[in-house]
């Protein structure tokens, strides 16, 4: 809770920086603030909500229980890495303070999404997160791609919001409340006897959430937006925003609509299957690494959705938590490298990576780790994430999805390895090393090591919520 306040406060502070002329200080302040938020976050760990209340409960609008704190932790940690990676971006942009503010507001929305307990907070969280993102996506004003990305994101996002709201309204109509725990209780008590429009509402919300996490067939915006947005923002979207969206999705469907599982599971399983197939297969044909990563994020979304599909209540949370973290740090590594490379080579195609194995061996090795992790090869974090999802899903009746997941993973290896092959197998006309500043190098090395470390010793994260 305090973390949320700190982050939103930071956002406002960043805005003020313009006026009070301490622009230079904003960056360090933000980093410190994030660390503080992170630290504060965990002081609330294991807080007993039934007992006395040092914080205002806000009528059960928002509740930073353990899963929420864990996801907040992931978001804050990744945000910290992201800010380090994005330092170059913040140096170059003209409207630094605005950017800072927008990013931090988005972050606020993301944190809300991890902890909401009410449809209002869900809705507001999504919008607080999304609206600044629309702007950020479009933030390169003279770049048509960026404009287009922002615009597409906005239109489709608002359209999806419409469905979300319609769904909320229907559910509200059927249950008479916006509180998700009350909704859950009502659904459970009704034993399927609620009016059908209630389930229609749930499904509409499912669709809207699937849109937010970019699952097929509601994924169309993602590749375009990811590609058009500035790389740094793409990284932000594919890590923090995605994590938050999943936290929200999970909270809503596991803790809210869990009792109506039979109504939405079939639809979700189809969505997962479609996402797996479409994302992996389309990614295989990409020539741009950035766009490939966009498609890959769809396939990762499908994996995380599997845990939700399993509907194991609390047991479904750790897999998603782990997955989001593993995926986020892997993506941060990949995007950080991609950012530097595309800046130096002038494009983000696979050929931009040619010969990197010789030119920047260390960076190339980190990229390999990131790719292996995204592809789900042991002992990287990505493997354990997938494994954990597998075990979760294996207990359900949706085993056929696993087979599909396995088959499409093999396709997935194809496009991740295209990068590796380009780095080590193809030769580049240039032989000098691509310039990487020391912060990026350090970040990339740290995230790579982290990828290996949590892949090898995943205990900490998975046992967090026990």
């Amino acid at each position, binding site marked *: 809770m305090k973390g949320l306040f700190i982050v939103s406060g930071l956002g406002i502070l960043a805005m003020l920086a313009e006026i009070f002329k301490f622009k230079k200080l904003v960056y360090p302040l933000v980093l410190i603030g994030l660390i503080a938020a992170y630290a504060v976050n965990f002081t609330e760990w294991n807080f007993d909500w039934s007992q006395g209340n040092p914080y205002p409960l806000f009528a059960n609008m928002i509740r930073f229980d353990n899963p929420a704190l864990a996801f907040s932790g992931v978001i804050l940690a990744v945000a910290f890495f992201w800010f380090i990676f994005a330092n170059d971006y913040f140096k170059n942009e003209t409207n630094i303070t605005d950017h800072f503010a927008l990013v931090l507001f988005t972050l606020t929305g993301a944190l809300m999404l991890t902890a909401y307990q009410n449809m209002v907070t869900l809705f507001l969280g999504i919008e607080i997160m999304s609206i600044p993102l629309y702007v950020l996506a479009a933030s390169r004003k003279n770049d048509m791609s960026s404009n287009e990305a922002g615009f597409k994101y906005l239109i489709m996002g608002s359209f999806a919001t419409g469905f979300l709201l319609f769904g909320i309204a229907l559910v509200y109509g059927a249950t008479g409340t916006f509180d998700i725990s009350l909704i859950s209780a009502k659904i459970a008590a009704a034993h399927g006897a609620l009016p059908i429009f209630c389930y229609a509402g749930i499904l509409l919300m499912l669709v809207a959430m699937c849109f937010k996490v970019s699952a097929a067939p509601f994924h169309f915006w993602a590749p375009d937006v990811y590609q058009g947005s500035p790389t740094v923002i793409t990284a932000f979207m594919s890590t923090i925003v995605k994590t938050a969206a999943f936290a929200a999705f999970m909270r809503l469907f596991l803790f809210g609509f869990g009792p109506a599982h039979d109504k939405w599971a079939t639809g979700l399983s189809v969505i997962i299957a479609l996402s797996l197939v479409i994302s992996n297969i389309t990614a295989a044909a990409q020539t741009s690494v950035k766009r490939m990563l966009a498609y890959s994020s769809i396939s990762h979304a499908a994996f995380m959705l599997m845990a939700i599909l399993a509907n194991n209540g609390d047991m479904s949370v750790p897999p998603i938590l782990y997955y989001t973290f593993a995926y986020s740090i892997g993506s941060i590594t990949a995007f950080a490298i991609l950012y530097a490379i595309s800046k130096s080579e002038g494009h983000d195609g696979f050929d931009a990576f040619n010969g990197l194995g010789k030119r920047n061996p260390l960076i190339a090795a980190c990229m390999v780790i990131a790719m292996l992790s995204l592809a789900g*090869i042991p002992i990287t974090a990505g493997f354990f994430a997938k494994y*954990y999802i597998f075990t979760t899903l*294996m207990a359900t009746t949706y085993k056929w999805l696993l087979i599909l997941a396995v088959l499409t*993973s093999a396709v997935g290896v194809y496009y991740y390895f295209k990068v590796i092959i380009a780095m*080590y197998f193809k030769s580049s006309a240039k032989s000098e090393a691509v310039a990487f500043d020391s912060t990026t190098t350090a970040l990339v090395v740290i995230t790579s090591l982290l990828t290996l470390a949590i892949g090898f010793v995943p205990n900490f994260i998975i046992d967090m919520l026990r």
Partner: protein
Amino acid sequence: MLTGLLIIFPLIAAILVFLTKGKTARNAALVLSVLEFIISLLVFYQFKHNPGAKELLLNCTWIESLGIKFAVGIDGISLLMVMLTTFLVPLIILSSYKNEYDKPNSFYGLILLMQMALVGVFIANDGFLFYIFWELALIPIYFICLLWGGEDRGRITFKFFVYTLLGSLFMLVGLVFLYQHTGGATGIKSWALNDLYAAGKNLSLYQQSFVFWSIFVAFAIKMPIFPFHTWQPDTYVTAPTQGTMLLSGIMLKMGTFGLIKWLMPIVPLALAKWGNTAMMMSVFGIIYASCIAIAQKDYKRLIAYSSIAHVGLIAAGILAFNQQGLQGAVIQMLGHGVNVVGLFLIADILFRHTGTRNIDSLGGIRNVNPQFAVLFLIVLLGSVALPLTNGFVGEFLLISGIYKYGAWTAAIAGLSVILGAVYMLRSYQNIMLGEVKTSTAGFGELAKSDKAVLIIVCAAIIAFGVYPKPLNDVTEPAVKALLENLK
């Protein structure tokens, strides 16, 4: 603890080698791998004298909440596989002394890393750990092939990687399925080998069939047996010789080893139902690959196909699942490992000295280098399973085992004895005999390192052909235990 050391030491060695520069890398790698061999000898000694010793077991918690442990242990079969690995890796490193690789530190480091993974696969007692090592073995070899391989390596190694990865993903599905069914009464799920065994037996036929096929495919691809083999010849040809040796000498055994220890005892019902199909695949593969080997011109490719034939026999022996079949399989795995390293080294020597591997353009090398001819002949005899070479003991037990399963199956599998002689002798004749050709006139003397490796290989071939008893003694209790387990 010793077993832990077996795994950790190559890792440390790999890191050390990564840190070296230039030619010291290979010397360091050689010394370190020999040290690892010595460690494995210690393990062997321990095992012989006190098989239940604590030193041989390691059981640390790893991911406790998911029932995953870092559990390793040694039985007769895994001991031999470990010995094979630790024995072959120094040879493989030594055999590379005449090849100039750039970035030798990475090259040798990757080999040692691979050694770690291989040893891990062989001694893992925990399903998850097994899978991790299984996959881990794939990465170094992929890079060895990709970075130091020959023509068209990008495409070929990629195919190899995806193919095997796909297989192992299916294996993961199968293993996870098993894992989900562990812990019947207590409800505490576990990855421990014995728990998986127990879980497997309680499954229905339908479930067992699912487990059987999902895991079998992974092993079948790794070995590889027909019809999952098409990645193999290309990969063997393209990979640098040391990579090929690792692949065929050791990595292939992961598949057969897995079949013995991680599949057959788990799914008795499915085995009864599907064993026939798998057996037919293996046996057909023997004939099929042997025939194809006859048609080969490229010597390396010829060995590649012959390896498919051999491994088909091993798989068939395992699938027969009886004392002779299993023991034969284990011994043949060792034999094949040693032989195939010898054969691939010979292919490499041929290529280095003459610039070609096409057997039709070679000939008459015996005139120029009779010593090489003799060493070659011994390796070749080992691979055609002449009695008193290591190949024979295994092959005899294998065919016996298969015979117990079905007489006609054994007869067909036994055809490999004949076809093997056909293609092996044909290649020997084309390469070594006849008049000297221009390509071979300047063949010259063997390098000291090559000669050393070949002599060691030949010595091993004969030694274990004449006196295989230690191997039999070590495997017998392990195999008996496995068979007991199935009852």
